[in-house]
């Protein structure tokens, strides 16, 4: 039993109050005023700020490296590989090596690199642990697709389709149709169709990497005839409130990275159009992922700060890296907010890091363990 006392608790849903938090068996047992438990280890958080563990909605931690070109994130043997599943590639040594929890990130959605039209299935992991399975929060959490130039680049140089956006969209449509008409009795088992069935039924979201205005418009146009599909636009630098289809309830967004500027699509982001949608509660999360980006542990916080500099409110920015991505990725019952019953994932800072750079991490709890000051997760890397 751990009792965190008197911290200024930000619950991830916009509420702030000075509260105590009790942790037991890796879960949050209680949140309230003046909690009292016998034999509890007391953490004095007076004057400190307490946040839910941050959720990195797009990352390649766990499936990149160890060499620069030796990794398991890009199955580029075909542009259509929906049957691929990151759970077969995830290496806990890679994840532990990042020490993402030093910046409060406790959960990461690990996605294949978005260089295929259909790349495969993403999974959510805790950012520290001993075994891949022990760190897994949810497998097959999303089907990852991409309609960006990254796909064109991969296949054009081999002289095979797709070398245009026409090619990308026709391949995507063809595979969705193939899965829609899939009959294992008639065709035999086909995993590339099986993997898409939960997408077509709306059980698993389809996460589509799109960098430009035209790509966002095109994917929403294509998916307008698949009304069951839950669409998550990622990257999404080209969206505004006027993008046709973006306001539908089934559409949510993971805004892409703004710390990198080499590809420069992110220079086009219309903050003035998107921030009011965020503040109004539209499920738009902030991520540090995108085309060929391997973010560091600081990147998610930096992205939140970037949105704050462009006018997003501090508490909404926090929600956009906690409860909102957790909701979009179907794990809000376990992570992304501070409430009884949730996983005991939280960080304690000496000041508010969404306000000042003087804020330093004091503790990070991950499944109830203090990974910042106590538990060490070695990596053979």
């Amino acid at each position, binding site marked *: 039993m751990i009792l965190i006392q008197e911290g200024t608790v930000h619950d991830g849903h916009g509420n702030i109050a000075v509260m105590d938090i009790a942790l037991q068996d890796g879960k949050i047992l209680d949140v309230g005023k003046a909690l009292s438990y016998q034999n509890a280890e007391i953490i004095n958080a007076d004057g400190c700020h307490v946040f839910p563990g941050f959720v990195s909605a797009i990352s*390649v*931690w766990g499936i*990149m*490296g*160890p*060499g*620069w070109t030796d990794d398991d994130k890009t199955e580029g043997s075909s542009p259509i590989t929906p049957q691929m599943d990151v759970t077969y590639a995830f290496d806990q040594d890679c994840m532990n*090596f*990042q*020490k993402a929890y030093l910046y409060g990130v406790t959960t990461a959605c690990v996605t294949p690199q978005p260089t295929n039209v259909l790349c495969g299935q993403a999974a959510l992991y805790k950012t520290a642990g001993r075994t891949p399975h022990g760190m897994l929060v949810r497998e097959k959490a999303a089907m990852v697709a991409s309609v960006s130039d990254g796909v064109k*680049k991969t296949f054009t140089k081999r002289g095979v389709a797709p070398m245009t956006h026409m090619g990308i969209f026709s391949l995507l449509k063809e595979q969705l149709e193939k899965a829609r008409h899939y009959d294992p009795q008639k065709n035999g088992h086909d995993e590339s169709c099986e993997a898409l069935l939960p997408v077509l039924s709306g059980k698993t979201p389809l996460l589509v990497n799109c960098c430009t205005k035209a790509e966002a418009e095109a994917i929403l146009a294509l998916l307008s005839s698949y009304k069951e599909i839950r669409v998550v636009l990622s990257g999404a630098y080209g969206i505004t409130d006027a993008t046709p289809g973006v306001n539908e309830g089934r559409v949510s967004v993971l805004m892409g990275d*703004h*710390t*990198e*500027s*080499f*590809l*420069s699509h*992110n*220079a086009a982001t219309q903050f003035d159009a998107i921030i009011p949608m965020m503040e109004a509660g539209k499920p738009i999360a902030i991520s540090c992922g995108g085309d060929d980006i*391997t*973010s*560091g542990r*600081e*990147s998610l916080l*930096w992205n939140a*700060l*970037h949105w*704050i*500099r462009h006018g997003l409110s501090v508490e909404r920015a926090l929600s956009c890296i906690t409860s909102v991505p957790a909701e979009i990725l179907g794990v809000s019952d376990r992570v992304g907010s501070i409430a009884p019953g949730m996983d005991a994932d939280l960080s304690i800072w000496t000041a508010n*890091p*969404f*306000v*000042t*750079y*003087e*804020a*330093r991490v004091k503790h990070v709890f991950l499944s109830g363990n203090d990974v910042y000051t106590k538990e060490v997760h070695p990596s053979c*890397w």
Partner: protein
Amino acid sequence: MLVIRHAKIFTAADKTYERGDIAVENGKIIAVAEKLPVPDYAEIIEADGLFAMPGIVDAHSHVGGFGAGDSQDLNEMTCNATPAVESFYAIDSDSKDFPRIIRAGITTSVIAPGSGNVIGGMVCACKSVGRSTTEMCIKNPVALKMALGGNPKGVYGSKNQLPMTRMGIAEVIRSNLFKARDYMQKQQAANGAPEKMPPYDQGLENICKVLRREIPIKVHCEQFDMMTTLRIAEEFNISFTLDHAWGASDFYDEICSAKNLVGVIFGPTGVGLLPGECGKVDIECLEVLDRRGVTCAIMTDGPIMNPELLVGQAGEAVRLGTPHERVLRMLTINPARIAGLDDRIGSLEPGKDADIVLFKGIPALDVAARCVRTIINGETVYAE
């Protein structure tokens, strides 16, 4: 005449003003004081509530020379050593990189060839505005670029060419330095007699500038590769900068006692970690290096990183223990000094170029702080 009034001023010259004025004339700063007389004809910028500081200097950048995709002009990867080439000729003054860095408060960038070659070429320094590269460039050469580790290995090793290893990289550097030393000795022995002079070689001429200590080598190196730089600089008695410098916290004693070290140019951070040269990214090293007398700067490696993150990384240095005022020097006077430009830029003092940025909020302290006005050579080139 221009007077910026009532700003909180960080001069980077051992003086800060809680509230003060800056006077500018003919592109130069003429006075900084708590209160300055304002003649009738002066243009006034009311900066009450704003934070004024010297224009930010990015000590390691590739802006203007790295377009998206294949349109790059800073890696002449046809030979492992290309000391003859100059970044100056790669820079597109119309590049969209420049308006972007101006909005982030960067007024001067030290623009280097990339790291594809072991010896990449000559480095120059440019202001962020100008009608041409000639007008923007304020110093050429600043340094000779070199790169250790995975970059040149990746380029040439994949072709079974030298260098395939770090052994090969050191060999490329040392053999070129020996060659230039011979060339220089032959020139000296000729004693002005044209028939005795060695055939003119632009690459060797450039390396001779290093051997004569007119310019430093600017070395892309991380982790234990930094020790290779130290060793070679010692052997040839040449001055050097450690660029990127990830993992510097493993080598404090060696770095702090290296007598030919001009400075450490750290960054970028916020990158995924891999074993080897990307294994340790430790911006907290700046606190110790600075305290022990090393001139430190922070870089974005632009356009790789969003230019706003020059200040963001400075904020991380503050978070991890470097005093705020010392960190602001790492964005201003320190990079200016490393580039040999501290007589012109890097601080707000009479006689210096009027490169001034105004922030709303305090940069590297308030996360929401943003540049609201950028002034270069006394002209406002960006205003929110």
